[in-house]
Protein backbone atom coordinates (compact mmCIF):
# COMPACT_ATOMS: atom_id res chain seq x y z
CA UNK A 1 0.00 0.00 0.00
CA UNK A 2 2.23 2.79 -1.26
CA UNK A 3 0.35 6.06 -1.30
CA UNK A 4 3.21 8.55 -1.37
CA UNK A 5 4.21 10.00 -4.73
CA UNK A 6 7.15 12.25 -5.57
CA UNK A 7 5.13 15.14 -6.97
CA UNK A 8 1.71 16.22 -8.16
CA UNK A 9 2.24 15.16 -11.77
CA UNK A 10 3.19 11.62 -10.76
CA UNK A 11 0.33 11.45 -8.27
CA UNK A 12 -2.17 12.28 -11.02
CA UNK A 13 -0.65 9.90 -13.57
CA UNK A 14 -3.36 7.79 -15.20
CA UNK A 15 -6.19 9.56 -13.38
CA UNK A 16 -6.91 12.48 -15.71
CA UNK A 17 -9.09 12.48 -18.81
CA UNK A 18 -11.14 15.03 -20.71
CA UNK A 19 -14.73 15.70 -19.62
CA UNK A 20 -14.30 14.36 -16.08
CA UNK A 21 -15.90 15.54 -12.81
CA UNK A 22 -13.39 16.70 -10.19
CA UNK A 23 -14.32 17.61 -6.62
CA UNK A 24 -11.89 20.12 -5.14
CA UNK A 25 -11.45 21.23 -1.54
CA UNK A 26 -10.92 24.81 -0.41
CA UNK A 27 -12.87 27.93 0.51
CA UNK A 28 -11.80 30.99 -1.44
CA UNK A 29 -8.02 30.54 -1.59
CA UNK A 30 -7.89 28.91 1.86
CA UNK A 31 -6.99 25.22 1.89
CA UNK A 32 -6.91 24.75 -1.88
CA UNK A 33 -4.86 21.97 -3.53
CA UNK A 34 -2.35 24.35 -5.15
CA UNK A 35 0.14 21.78 -6.48
CA UNK A 36 -2.51 19.46 -7.91
CA UNK A 37 -4.29 22.31 -9.72
CA UNK A 38 -0.98 23.32 -11.29
CA UNK A 39 -0.33 19.74 -12.41
CA UNK A 40 -3.81 19.53 -13.94
CA UNK A 41 -3.07 22.72 -15.84
CA UNK A 42 0.21 21.28 -17.15
CA UNK A 43 -1.50 18.04 -18.19
CA UNK A 44 -3.66 19.94 -20.68
CA UNK A 45 -6.74 17.85 -19.84
CA UNK A 46 -9.89 19.78 -20.82
CA UNK A 47 -13.70 20.07 -20.66
CA UNK A 48 -13.49 19.59 -16.91
CA UNK A 49 -16.39 19.99 -14.51
CA UNK A 50 -15.40 21.15 -11.04
CA UNK A 51 -17.46 20.74 -7.89
CA UNK A 52 -15.80 23.45 -5.83
CA UNK A 53 -17.25 26.14 -3.59
CA UNK A 54 -15.37 28.90 -5.43
CA UNK A 55 -13.42 29.34 -8.66
CA UNK A 56 -10.24 30.92 -7.32
CA UNK A 57 -8.94 34.28 -8.54
CA UNK A 58 -7.56 35.07 -11.99
CA UNK A 59 -4.05 33.77 -11.40
CA UNK A 60 -4.50 31.36 -8.50
CA UNK A 61 -6.59 28.34 -7.60
CA UNK A 62 -9.02 27.06 -10.22
CA UNK A 63 -8.56 30.42 -11.94
CA UNK A 64 -5.38 29.10 -13.57
CA UNK A 65 -7.45 26.45 -15.37
CA UNK A 66 -9.93 29.05 -16.56
CA UNK A 67 -7.14 31.01 -18.22
CA UNK A 68 -6.24 27.93 -20.24
CA UNK A 69 -9.92 27.14 -20.96
CA UNK A 70 -9.75 23.70 -19.41
CA UNK A 71 -12.98 24.11 -17.45
CA UNK A 72 -16.38 23.48 -19.02
CA UNK A 73 -18.60 23.77 -15.98
CA UNK A 74 -18.48 24.88 -12.34
CA UNK A 75 -20.70 23.58 -9.52
CA UNK A 76 -20.19 26.33 -6.93
CA UNK A 77 -21.91 28.56 -4.40
CA UNK A 78 -20.01 31.80 -5.01
CA UNK A 79 -17.77 32.91 -7.83
CA UNK A 80 -17.41 36.65 -7.34
CA UNK A 81 -13.64 37.04 -7.15
CA UNK A 82 -12.60 36.10 -10.66
CA UNK A 83 -12.72 38.44 -13.70
CA UNK A 84 -11.82 35.77 -16.25
CA UNK A 85 -14.53 33.52 -14.85
CA UNK A 86 -17.10 36.29 -15.26
CA UNK A 87 -15.93 37.05 -18.79
CA UNK A 88 -16.26 33.42 -19.91
CA UNK A 89 -19.55 33.03 -18.05
CA UNK A 90 -21.14 36.14 -19.60
CA UNK A 91 -19.85 35.09 -23.05
CA UNK A 92 -21.58 31.72 -22.63
CA UNK A 93 -18.28 29.84 -22.74
CA UNK A 94 -18.57 28.47 -19.24
CA UNK A 95 -21.50 26.76 -17.60
CA UNK A 96 -22.30 27.32 -13.93
CA UNK A 97 -24.59 25.41 -11.63
CA UNK A 98 -25.13 27.48 -8.49
CA UNK A 99 -25.55 25.38 -5.37
CA UNK A 100 -26.30 26.74 -1.90
CA UNK A 101 -23.07 26.30 0.02
CA UNK A 102 -24.42 23.83 2.53
CA UNK A 103 -26.21 21.86 -0.16
CA UNK A 104 -22.94 21.60 -2.09
CA UNK A 105 -21.08 20.38 1.00
CA UNK A 106 -23.80 17.87 1.83
CA UNK A 107 -23.99 16.65 -1.78
CA UNK A 108 -20.29 15.82 -1.54
CA UNK A 109 -20.61 14.22 1.88
CA UNK A 110 -23.66 12.22 0.76
CA UNK A 111 -21.90 10.99 -2.38
CA UNK A 112 -18.99 9.83 -0.26
CA UNK A 113 -21.37 8.00 2.06
CA UNK A 114 -23.19 6.17 -0.74
CA UNK A 115 -26.29 8.33 -0.42
CA UNK A 116 -27.62 9.27 -3.88
CA UNK A 117 -30.08 11.87 -2.65
CA UNK A 118 -31.32 13.71 0.42
CA UNK A 119 -34.08 16.17 1.27
CA UNK A 120 -33.31 19.66 2.55
CA UNK A 121 -35.27 22.81 3.36
CA UNK A 122 -32.55 24.92 1.77
CA UNK A 123 -33.76 26.55 -1.45
CA UNK A 124 -37.43 25.55 -1.19
CA UNK A 125 -39.48 28.29 -2.89
CA UNK A 126 -36.45 29.59 -4.83
CA UNK A 127 -34.92 29.03 -8.28
CA UNK A 128 -32.70 26.35 -6.75
CA UNK A 129 -35.69 24.03 -6.24
CA UNK A 130 -37.13 24.47 -9.74
CA UNK A 131 -37.48 21.14 -11.54
CA UNK A 132 -36.58 19.14 -8.44
CA UNK A 133 -38.78 16.77 -6.44
CA UNK A 134 -40.49 18.31 -3.40
CA UNK A 135 -41.71 16.28 -0.47
CA UNK A 136 -43.46 17.18 2.77
CA UNK A 137 -42.30 15.84 6.11
CA UNK A 138 -44.27 16.82 9.22
CA UNK A 139 -45.99 19.65 7.35
CA UNK A 140 -42.78 21.20 6.07
CA UNK A 141 -41.64 21.11 2.43
CA UNK A 142 -38.21 19.81 1.46
CA UNK A 143 -36.40 19.54 -1.88
CA UNK A 144 -34.52 16.51 -3.16
CA UNK A 145 -30.81 17.15 -3.80
CA UNK A 146 -28.49 14.55 -5.28
CA UNK A 147 -25.21 13.24 -3.94
CA UNK A 148 -22.09 14.05 -5.94
CA UNK A 149 -20.04 11.09 -7.14
CA UNK A 150 -16.86 12.59 -8.57
CA UNK A 151 -14.35 10.84 -10.82
CA UNK A 152 -11.51 12.41 -8.88
CA UNK A 153 -11.04 14.35 -5.64
CA UNK A 154 -8.19 16.79 -5.15
CA UNK A 155 -7.73 18.11 -1.62
CA UNK A 156 -5.22 19.76 0.67
CA UNK A 157 -4.48 18.96 4.31
CA UNK A 158 -1.89 20.19 6.80
CA UNK A 159 -0.29 16.91 7.82
CA UNK A 160 -0.80 13.27 6.95
CA UNK A 161 0.93 10.07 7.92
CA UNK A 162 2.15 7.62 5.28
CA UNK A 163 -1.23 5.86 5.24
CA UNK A 164 -3.09 9.10 4.46
CA UNK A 165 -4.57 9.74 7.90
CA UNK A 166 -4.91 13.50 7.72
CA UNK A 167 -5.13 16.55 9.95
CA UNK A 168 -6.28 19.93 8.73
CA UNK A 169 -5.41 23.32 10.17
CA UNK A 170 -7.98 25.92 11.31
CA UNK A 171 -10.46 27.04 8.62
CA UNK A 172 -8.38 25.44 5.86
CA UNK A 173 -10.37 22.27 6.57
CA UNK A 174 -13.60 23.63 4.99
CA UNK A 175 -14.65 21.59 1.92
CA UNK A 176 -11.62 19.29 1.97
CA UNK A 177 -13.08 16.34 3.93
CA UNK A 178 -16.40 16.16 2.01
CA UNK A 179 -14.58 16.67 -1.30
CA UNK A 180 -12.12 13.91 -0.41
CA UNK A 181 -14.94 11.52 0.42
CA UNK A 182 -16.94 11.87 -2.81
CA UNK A 183 -14.34 10.89 -5.40
CA UNK A 184 -13.66 7.44 -6.85
CA UNK A 185 -10.00 8.32 -6.33
CA UNK A 186 -8.70 10.98 -3.96
CA UNK A 187 -5.30 12.65 -4.30
CA UNK A 188 -4.21 14.72 -1.31
CA UNK A 189 -1.41 17.23 -0.97
CA UNK A 190 -0.07 18.13 2.45
CA UNK A 191 2.47 20.48 3.93
CA UNK A 192 4.16 17.61 5.76
CA UNK A 193 4.07 13.82 5.56
CA UNK A 194 4.92 12.43 8.99
CA UNK A 195 5.85 8.85 9.93
CA UNK A 196 2.93 6.51 10.50
CA UNK A 197 2.34 6.28 14.23
CA UNK A 198 3.38 9.85 15.00
CA UNK A 199 -0.15 11.29 14.82
CA UNK A 200 -2.52 10.73 17.74
CA UNK A 201 -5.26 8.45 16.34
CA UNK A 202 -7.81 10.44 18.32
CA UNK A 203 -6.82 13.59 16.46
CA UNK A 204 -7.28 12.37 12.87
CA UNK A 205 -9.80 14.52 10.97
CA UNK A 206 -9.92 12.36 7.82
CA UNK A 207 -9.03 8.66 7.97
CA UNK A 208 -6.62 7.42 5.31
CA UNK A 209 -9.25 5.13 3.82
CA UNK A 210 -10.42 8.15 1.82
CA UNK A 211 -6.93 9.01 0.55
CA UNK A 212 -5.44 7.00 -2.32
CA UNK A 213 -2.44 9.07 -3.32
CA UNK A 214 -0.44 11.54 -1.29
CA UNK A 215 2.18 14.20 -1.96
CA UNK A 216 4.07 16.68 0.14
CA UNK A 217 4.41 20.13 -1.39
CA UNK A 218 5.33 23.75 -0.83
CA UNK A 219 2.30 26.01 -0.54
CA UNK A 220 2.02 29.71 -1.26
CA UNK A 221 -1.17 30.00 0.82
CA UNK A 222 -2.18 33.33 -0.61
CA UNK A 223 -4.44 35.61 1.47
CA UNK A 224 -7.48 36.93 -0.41
CA UNK A 225 -8.64 39.70 1.96
CA UNK A 226 -5.94 40.84 4.37
CA UNK A 227 -7.75 42.56 7.24
CA UNK A 228 -6.04 43.75 10.42
CA UNK A 229 -6.82 45.84 13.49
CA UNK A 230 -4.60 48.49 15.08
CA UNK A 231 -2.95 47.88 18.41
CA UNK A 232 -4.43 50.20 21.02
CA UNK A 233 -2.36 53.34 21.39
CA UNK A 234 -0.56 52.64 18.14
Amino acid at each position, binding site marked *: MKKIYANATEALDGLLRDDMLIAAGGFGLCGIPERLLEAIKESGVKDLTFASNNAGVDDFGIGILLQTRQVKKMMSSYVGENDEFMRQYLAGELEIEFNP*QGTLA*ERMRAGGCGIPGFYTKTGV*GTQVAEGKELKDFDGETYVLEEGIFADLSIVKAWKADETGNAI*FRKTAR*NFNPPAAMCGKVCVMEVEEIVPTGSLDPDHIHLPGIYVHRLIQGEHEKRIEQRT*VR*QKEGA
Partner: protein
Amino acid sequence: MPWDRNQMAERAAQELEDGMYVNLGIGIPTLVANYVGDKDITLQSENGMLGMGPFPFEGEEDPDLINAGKQTITEMDRTAYFDSAQSFGMIRGGKIAAAILGAMEVAENGDLANWMIPGKLVKGMGGAMDLVAGVGRVVVVMDHTNKHGASKVLKECTLPLTGAGVVDLIISNLGVLEVVEGGLRIVETAPDVTEDDIRAATEATIL
Protein backbone atom coordinates in the same frame (compact mmCIF):
# COMPACT_ATOMS: atom_id res chain seq x y z
CA MET B 1 -33.55 61.01 12.82
CA PRO B 2 -33.16 57.69 11.04
CA TRP B 3 -30.54 55.32 12.42
CA ASP B 4 -27.12 55.16 10.78
CA ARG B 5 -25.25 51.92 10.07
CA ASN B 6 -23.78 51.65 13.54
CA GLN B 7 -27.08 52.47 15.25
CA MET B 8 -28.83 49.78 13.20
CA ALA B 9 -26.13 47.31 14.24
CA GLU B 10 -26.50 48.39 17.87
CA ARG B 11 -30.27 47.84 17.68
CA ALA B 12 -29.76 44.43 16.07
CA ALA B 13 -27.43 43.44 18.92
CA GLN B 14 -30.37 43.89 21.31
CA GLU B 15 -32.00 40.90 19.61
CA LEU B 16 -29.21 38.63 20.81
CA GLU B 17 -29.48 36.81 24.11
CA ASP B 18 -26.83 35.49 26.43
CA GLY B 19 -25.56 32.08 25.34
CA MET B 20 -26.65 32.32 21.71
CA TYR B 21 -24.71 30.90 18.76
CA VAL B 22 -25.12 33.43 15.97
CA ASN B 23 -24.11 33.89 12.33
CA LEU B 24 -23.51 37.45 11.13
CA GLY B 25 -23.59 38.35 7.43
CA ILE B 26 -21.31 40.72 5.58
CA GLY B 27 -21.74 44.52 5.83
CA ILE B 28 -23.78 46.14 8.61
CA PRO B 29 -24.42 42.73 10.27
CA THR B 30 -20.67 42.37 10.87
CA LEU B 31 -20.82 45.55 12.98
CA VAL B 32 -23.29 43.89 15.36
CA ALA B 33 -20.33 42.14 17.04
CA ASN B 34 -19.20 45.56 18.34
CA TYR B 35 -22.40 46.00 20.37
CA VAL B 36 -23.01 42.68 22.15
CA GLY B 37 -21.60 44.13 25.40
CA ASP B 38 -21.46 41.67 28.29
CA LYS B 39 -23.62 39.08 26.56
CA ASP B 40 -21.93 35.74 25.99
CA ILE B 41 -22.36 35.34 22.22
CA THR B 42 -20.52 32.78 20.09
CA LEU B 43 -20.13 33.75 16.45
CA GLN B 44 -20.23 31.11 13.76
CA SER B 45 -18.37 31.51 10.49
CA GLU B 46 -19.93 29.12 8.00
CA ASN B 47 -16.64 28.18 6.39
CA GLY B 48 -16.05 26.05 9.47
CA MET B 49 -15.62 27.81 12.80
CA LEU B 50 -17.41 28.58 16.04
CA GLY B 51 -15.93 31.27 18.25
CA MET B 52 -14.77 33.79 15.66
CA GLY B 53 -12.43 36.42 17.07
CA PRO B 54 -11.56 39.92 15.83
CA PHE B 55 -9.23 40.81 12.95
CA PRO B 56 -5.56 39.99 13.68
CA PHE B 57 -2.92 42.57 14.46
CA GLU B 58 -0.68 43.47 11.55
CA GLY B 59 1.88 40.73 11.00
CA GLU B 60 -0.24 38.11 12.75
CA GLU B 61 -2.46 37.22 9.79
CA ASP B 62 -2.80 33.49 9.17
CA PRO B 63 -3.81 32.35 5.66
CA ASP B 64 -5.41 29.25 7.22
CA LEU B 65 -7.73 31.37 9.36
CA ILE B 66 -10.37 33.35 7.50
CA ASN B 67 -14.07 34.15 7.85
CA ALA B 68 -16.82 33.53 5.31
CA GLY B 69 -16.02 36.91 3.71
CA LYS B 70 -12.46 35.57 3.16
CA GLN B 71 -11.05 38.14 5.61
CA THR B 72 -8.23 37.21 7.98
CA ILE B 73 -9.52 36.74 11.54
CA THR B 74 -8.38 35.26 14.87
CA GLU B 75 -9.45 32.42 17.12
CA MET B 76 -10.58 32.55 20.76
CA ASP B 77 -10.25 30.22 23.75
CA ARG B 78 -13.60 28.65 22.90
CA THR B 79 -12.97 28.23 19.18
CA ALA B 80 -13.80 24.98 17.43
CA TYR B 81 -13.10 24.15 13.78
CA PHE B 82 -15.01 21.72 11.56
CA ASP B 83 -15.60 20.99 7.89
CA SER B 84 -18.19 22.61 5.62
CA ALA B 85 -20.59 19.65 5.77
CA GLN B 86 -20.70 19.77 9.56
CA SER B 87 -20.89 23.57 9.51
CA PHE B 88 -24.02 23.52 7.40
CA GLY B 89 -25.27 20.52 9.33
CA MET B 90 -25.46 22.73 12.41
CA ILE B 91 -27.07 25.51 10.36
CA ARG B 92 -29.61 23.27 8.62
CA GLY B 93 -30.17 21.38 11.86
CA GLY B 94 -31.40 24.50 13.64
CA LYS B 95 -28.51 24.67 16.12
CA ILE B 96 -27.65 28.27 15.24
CA ALA B 97 -30.05 30.50 17.18
CA ALA B 98 -30.04 33.46 14.82
CA ALA B 99 -28.66 34.89 11.61
CA ILE B 100 -28.40 38.63 11.01
CA LEU B 101 -28.03 39.51 7.37
CA GLY B 102 -28.62 42.20 4.75
CA ALA B 103 -31.32 42.22 2.08
CA MET B 104 -32.25 43.77 -1.24
CA GLU B 105 -35.98 43.15 -0.67
CA VAL B 106 -38.19 41.71 2.06
CA ALA B 107 -41.89 40.92 1.61
CA GLU B 108 -44.70 41.09 4.15
CA ASN B 109 -44.89 37.27 4.26
CA GLY B 110 -41.22 37.03 5.23
CA ASP B 111 -39.88 36.28 1.74
CA LEU B 112 -36.28 37.43 1.38
CA ALA B 113 -34.32 38.40 -1.75
CA ASN B 114 -30.65 39.17 -1.37
CA TRP B 115 -28.63 37.11 -3.84
CA MET B 116 -29.29 38.07 -7.44
CA ILE B 117 -30.60 40.74 -9.78
CA PRO B 118 -31.66 39.29 -13.15
CA GLY B 119 -29.64 40.75 -16.00
CA LYS B 120 -26.83 41.74 -13.66
CA LEU B 121 -23.75 39.84 -12.69
CA VAL B 122 -24.72 36.85 -10.56
CA LYS B 123 -22.03 35.80 -8.14
CA GLY B 124 -23.94 33.14 -6.26
CA MET B 125 -25.86 32.68 -3.04
CA GLY B 126 -22.97 31.39 -0.94
CA GLY B 127 -24.43 30.13 2.33
CA ALA B 128 -27.36 32.56 2.51
CA MET B 129 -30.06 30.10 1.39
CA ASP B 130 -28.90 27.50 3.90
CA LEU B 131 -28.78 30.04 6.72
CA VAL B 132 -32.24 31.52 6.21
CA ALA B 133 -33.78 28.06 5.82
CA GLY B 134 -32.06 26.59 8.85
CA VAL B 135 -31.41 28.99 11.71
CA GLY B 136 -33.85 29.68 14.53
CA ARG B 137 -34.45 33.34 13.82
CA VAL B 138 -33.66 35.49 10.78
CA VAL B 139 -33.08 39.21 11.40
CA VAL B 140 -32.66 41.46 8.36
CA VAL B 141 -30.76 44.72 8.69
CA MET B 142 -31.10 47.09 5.73
CA ASP B 143 -32.05 50.56 4.56
CA HIS B 144 -35.81 50.95 4.30
CA THR B 145 -35.66 52.34 0.75
CA ASN B 146 -33.24 52.02 -2.15
CA LYS B 147 -31.13 54.82 -3.56
CA HIS B 148 -34.04 55.90 -5.77
CA GLY B 149 -36.31 56.20 -2.74
CA ALA B 150 -38.36 53.09 -3.56
CA SER B 151 -39.41 50.85 -0.70
CA LYS B 152 -37.44 47.66 -0.08
CA VAL B 153 -40.21 46.38 2.21
CA LEU B 154 -42.75 45.05 -0.27
CA LYS B 155 -46.03 43.18 -0.63
CA GLU B 156 -44.17 40.66 -2.80
CA CYS B 157 -40.50 40.44 -3.69
CA THR B 158 -39.72 41.26 -7.32
CA LEU B 159 -36.24 39.69 -7.24
CA PRO B 160 -35.50 35.95 -7.15
CA LEU B 161 -35.88 34.66 -3.59
CA THR B 162 -33.18 33.57 -1.21
CA GLY B 163 -35.82 32.02 1.01
CA ALA B 164 -39.64 31.88 1.20
CA GLY B 165 -41.31 33.06 4.42
CA VAL B 166 -38.03 33.05 6.35
CA VAL B 167 -37.65 36.57 7.81
CA ASP B 168 -38.70 37.15 11.43
CA LEU B 169 -37.61 40.73 12.03
CA ILE B 170 -36.61 43.73 9.92
CA ILE B 171 -34.34 46.40 11.38
CA SER B 172 -34.15 49.33 8.97
CA ASN B 173 -32.85 52.87 9.29
CA LEU B 174 -36.43 53.91 10.14
CA GLY B 175 -37.32 51.35 12.77
CA VAL B 176 -38.05 47.75 13.65
CA LEU B 177 -40.80 45.66 12.03
CA GLU B 178 -41.88 42.16 12.95
CA VAL B 179 -43.26 39.71 10.38
CA VAL B 180 -46.59 38.45 11.71
CA GLU B 181 -49.68 36.75 10.33
CA GLY B 182 -51.17 39.03 7.65
CA GLY B 183 -48.32 41.54 7.37
CA LEU B 184 -45.85 43.55 9.35
CA ARG B 185 -46.12 45.08 12.80
CA ILE B 186 -44.13 48.13 13.83
CA VAL B 187 -42.17 47.29 16.97
CA GLU B 188 -40.17 50.47 17.31
CA THR B 189 -39.39 53.67 15.44
CA ALA B 190 -36.01 55.38 15.17
CA PRO B 191 -35.78 58.70 17.07
CA ASP B 192 -37.95 61.41 15.46
CA VAL B 193 -39.32 58.91 12.93
CA THR B 194 -43.08 58.45 13.20
CA GLU B 195 -45.15 55.38 12.41
CA ASP B 196 -46.59 57.40 9.54
CA ASP B 197 -43.08 57.96 8.19
CA ILE B 198 -42.56 54.19 8.21
CA ARG B 199 -45.93 53.56 6.55
CA ALA B 200 -45.08 56.11 3.83
CA ALA B 201 -41.77 54.34 3.11
CA THR B 202 -43.29 50.86 3.13
CA GLU B 203 -45.17 49.14 0.31
CA ALA B 204 -45.97 46.10 2.45
CA THR B 205 -49.11 45.82 4.57
CA ILE B 206 -48.53 47.26 8.04
CA LEU B 207 -51.05 46.10 10.61
